[in-house]
């Protein structure tokens, strides 16, 4: 059963067509990797799904509901949550407060929301930073915080935009493990990433975007071994 369906999604900025007729279906509990060169429209795709941008044409259907043109907060509350490549923490607030805001969208009681937030923070491994100002976290900590805020909304679908960017290789492994746990906990995941080792380790299907449109989608091994994909999008280093 598909939980997220894109039907002919297009987005133009003036004369520039950032997305052209994107139609894909994502099955429930799937882990879909998304790759493509810079400017292929990966982030624009996420923004049009999650409500930061409104599509020029086409439809976004999430959990059998047409959510095309919904505002970002409404999409997030419905259970379709994205993260940004550049993190958006509330710097002058504690880690706990950062996550509690998300918990409050689901839970009315202040105490329960804080307990819920604390559980999520423990889960992503930030327990010892609970009362620290989020602005003082190192990059890897901010990535975990971004994930915690997303998880606190109890998402059905996560759109992860380059969560591994800016991390050194030793920091990546635990985050990759965390992503695997989140996915296995029952969250459908769309994963935009440049780090191919992570993409290949996690993805069940792989989508290649090129000039705003899907070039190929399918089994990750088959996709990365496809001659056109190798030639045009992975370059010589893969």
């Amino acid at each position: 059963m598909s939980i997220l369906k894109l039907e002919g999604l297009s987005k133009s900025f003036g004369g520039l067509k950032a997305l052209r007729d994107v139609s894909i279906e994502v099955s429930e509990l799937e882990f879909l990797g998304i790759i493509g060169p810079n400017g292929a429209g990966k982030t624009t795709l996420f923004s049009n799904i999650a409500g930061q941008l409104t599509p020029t044409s086409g439809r976004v259907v999430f959990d059998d509901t047409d959510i095309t043109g919904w505002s970002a907060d409404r999409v997030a509350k419905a259970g379709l949550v994205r993260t940004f490549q550049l993190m958006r923490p509330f710097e002058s607030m504690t880690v706990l407060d950062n996550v509690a805001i998300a918990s409050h969208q689901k839970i009315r009681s202040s105490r329960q929301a804080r307990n819920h937030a604390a559980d999520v923070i423990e889960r992503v491994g930030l327990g010892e930073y609970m009362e620290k100002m989020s602005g003082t976290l190192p990059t890897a900590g901010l990535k975990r915080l971004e994930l915690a805020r997303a998880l606190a909304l109890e998402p059905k679908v996560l759109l992860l935009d380059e969560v591994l960017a800016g991390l050194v290789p030793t920091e990546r492994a635990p985050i990759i493990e965390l992503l695997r746990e989140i996915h296995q906990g029952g969250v459908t995941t769309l994963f935009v990433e440049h780090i191919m080792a992570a993409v290949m380790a996690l993805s069940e299907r792989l989508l290649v975007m090129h000039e705003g449109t899907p070039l190929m989608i399918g089994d990750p091994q088959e996709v990365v071994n496809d001659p056109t994909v190798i030639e045009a999008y992975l370059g010589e280093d893969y």
Partner: protein
Amino acid sequence: MSKTTNFSPEQTSAHPPLLKRRQTRIILATIAVAVLLVAGVYLLGGQPTRLVNQALISGVLLGGVYALVSLGLTLIFGVLHIVNFAQGAMLTLSMYTVFMLSTQAGLNPYLAAVLTIPIMFAFGWAFQAGIMNRVMGDTSHERPLLVTLGLSLLIINGLLMAFGGRPAAVESPLAGSISLFGTLVDRPRLIACLGALVVGALLTLVLRKTPLGLAIRAVAANDTGAALVGVNVKRIYAMTFGLGAVCVAVAGGLMAPFTSLIPTAGEQFTTLAFVIVVLGGLGSIPGALVGGLIVGLVQTVGSLYLPGGGSLLLVFVLFLLVLFLRPQGLFGAKQ
């Protein structure tokens, strides 16, 4: 990473936090300068001690009310990043609301002031939700700014049409003076200052402790991030404008008994509140409180030497001095 900074190098933000925890040094420095200046006035000022006492107490009372008006302005700026040019006119509107409720409906002015709170909240909320949210976009900060200017003109001229330009007055049932530290203190002014402090404390509590406050601080820090975690940013904008209006509602309600009521009565407060807010740091709540007290004190103590409008001159000299030494304001974030 150093503990004194809330900002990591790659995540610089131009928006100061509404409430900030580590500001002890600035507070101590401000107090030290203030104490030195006051001591200077007492010892070398050449004025009778009794007069200086009187000026200090008046200054604190005046400053409390200034702080409340500025609190609304800084809250709105901190969250919406817009200077509300209608702050003064909204103050006047609150005073006329109290005037109407007390003279037409015969209510006690202080009860009328309490009733003005929900009225002004609804006014601010509706203005933001109905008009401002439509003109606020990513592209332009001028449009919403001009809309607040328009609202200001609308209110002032609407009041002129309805009430004319002749001064009106609200009679306080608590008029009179009490003796404090050997000086006479006007009771309505004392009540106004205490009321301002109570509302300031309540507002801080709301921002620190409630889910709404959490959401408001989140939007102030990063509106994109707030929407990402499910916060309805436009709703928070409307609530914030409503709370900003509540500040002037309380200030207006409490000031009405000792203000000569004309449709432009609040106008000077737009400028003064702006000076206070920039002095304290745009978007900072402690900044507005401290700034209000400083300006109040400078104005009253200054009037010992420069009677009449001359004391305002000192306020602006101080303003320029602070801008020169600390451009981000006393409690503002470095940009």
